[in-house]
């Protein structure tokens, strides 16, 4: 698959000599099969994120966030990479004991790590197609990392408190992911504007008011996701003004 090629192939020195067999990993059965030398990350319960300890592959240019020079990833990112055999997740206590996939699924189901199952389905679907995704409003790199981040420039982010207060405005719909079109030139230090923001409106389609409220908070196009029986659909609800015709 096209997008897997650019994502998994890498020029990094650790990679040389490994035969990639992505298809096999994708369709692997209940047993986990990992590419020899896959990345490793350690789950940090307090942060509800995993700290990446060993990076393998170019995939980290489009996954995870950088804070003070270290790379962290959210549960959806960790789960996805684990599912495709690119990541081994380690527990907080024991050094080398791997957290099984089952536990990662449980973390999603518990909804305590900021991602629910529907969100994960959207993440997995788009990520598998090569899109670049991050949680809405979370900067790729933080200000503190200015000195130590290898990527250079800082990403200016909105004040967290302001954002939290805005989010409390009554609205059934919520913005979940910022989505960027697939590109091999993506840079966390200057990602540009996302193509759209993936939103959820709950059990029903968004009301006109909810679309308005959400659009007033978000500068880019909105795409509402509907997840049902493992199928993900995307709908846009755009206000238009029919032109006056001659």
């Amino acid at each position, binding site marked *: 698959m*096209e*997008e897997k090629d650019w994502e998994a192939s890498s020029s990094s020195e650790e990679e040389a000599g490994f035969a990639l067999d992505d298809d096999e990993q994708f369709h692997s059965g209940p047993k986990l099969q990992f590419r020899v030398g896959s990345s490793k990350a350690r789950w940090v319960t307090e942060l509800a994120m995993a700290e990446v300890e060993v990076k393998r592959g170019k995939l980290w240019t489009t996954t995870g966030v950088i804070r003070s020079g270290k790379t962290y990833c959210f549960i959806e990112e960790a789960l996805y990479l684990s599912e495709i055999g690119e990541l081994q997740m380690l527990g907080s206590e024991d050094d080398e004991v791997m957290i099984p996939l089952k536990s990662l699924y449980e973390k999603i189901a518990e909804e305590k790590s900021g991602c629910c199952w529907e969100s994960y389905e959207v993440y997995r*679907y*788009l990520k598998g*197609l*090569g*899109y670049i995704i991050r949680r809405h409003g979370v900067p790729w790199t933080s200000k503190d990392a200015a000195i130590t981040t290898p990527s250079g420039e800082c990403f200016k982010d909105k004040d967290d408190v302001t954002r939290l207060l805005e989010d409390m405005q009554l609205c059934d719909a919520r913005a979940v992911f910022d989505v*960027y*079109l*697939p*590109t*091999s*030139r993506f*840079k966390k230090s*200057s*990602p*540009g*504007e*996302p*193509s*759209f923001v993936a939103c959820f409106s709950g*059990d*029903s*389609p968004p009301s*006109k008011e909810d*679309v308005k409220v959400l659009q007033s908070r978000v500068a*880019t*196009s909105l*795409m509402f996701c*509907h997840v*049902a029986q493992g199928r993900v*659909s*995307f*709908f*846009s*609800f*755009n*206000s*238009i*003004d*029919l*032109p*006056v*015709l*001659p």
Partner: protein
Amino acid sequence: MLYMQLHSMAPRWKWKAGSLSSCNVLLAVEPEQAELLDRCCFGRLVLSAEKDKKWIQLSFEEAFYLLYNLKCIKIYLQGRCLENEVDTWMYMKSQRPNFPIFFKAYSPLRSKNWVLRSGLQYGVDFVAYRHHPSLVHSEYSVLVQSGDSNRLRVWSDVHCAVRLSGSVAKTLLTVHVSGNSEKEDLNLPLCLENYRVEEQTICRWSPELNREDETTNPKPNATTVSDLKPV
């Protein structure tokens, strides 16, 4: 345009009389007037053997628009002329409870010179054409929404309406009529004075189809969703 044309014909037009029935208004006109109405896309010609007179069948919305907005017809009910527009409104409302809300959606779009026809065969309320239906296909399939309407309330409705529209190459358009509820005055002239319509398109997007690789076009800025073709 229609307004001016009809009024320039005024002496000959002579306030055409439309007879109101339970579901439409029948208008008898001269052949050239029939042609004019056809050019402006009002009504349907009723085929008949009569040569000097043409019968045009108008929907309630079309008839009321000609009556109230363009002021170029008069309405007769059972032979009696309804001088007051309110009477026509009330009668139409009694025959079709959704007439007021449909008219509130019809009128502003028609005023922008979009042609609205029945959308029943496409499972929607109206279809909207940019030009004469004989020249183009309709662009939008229109669903009328008011504040308390239960159209498109569940996701399967959205999937269904969008899919239906897409299969006939139309974009789904919802027209939200604001400030309308059962309890509000649905009577003229009040209800046609201060209201707003807001148009909204609903499109389905397919992520498989729009993933241009930007290596050949190195712009860090994103393609906006409006550039992405709906499915």
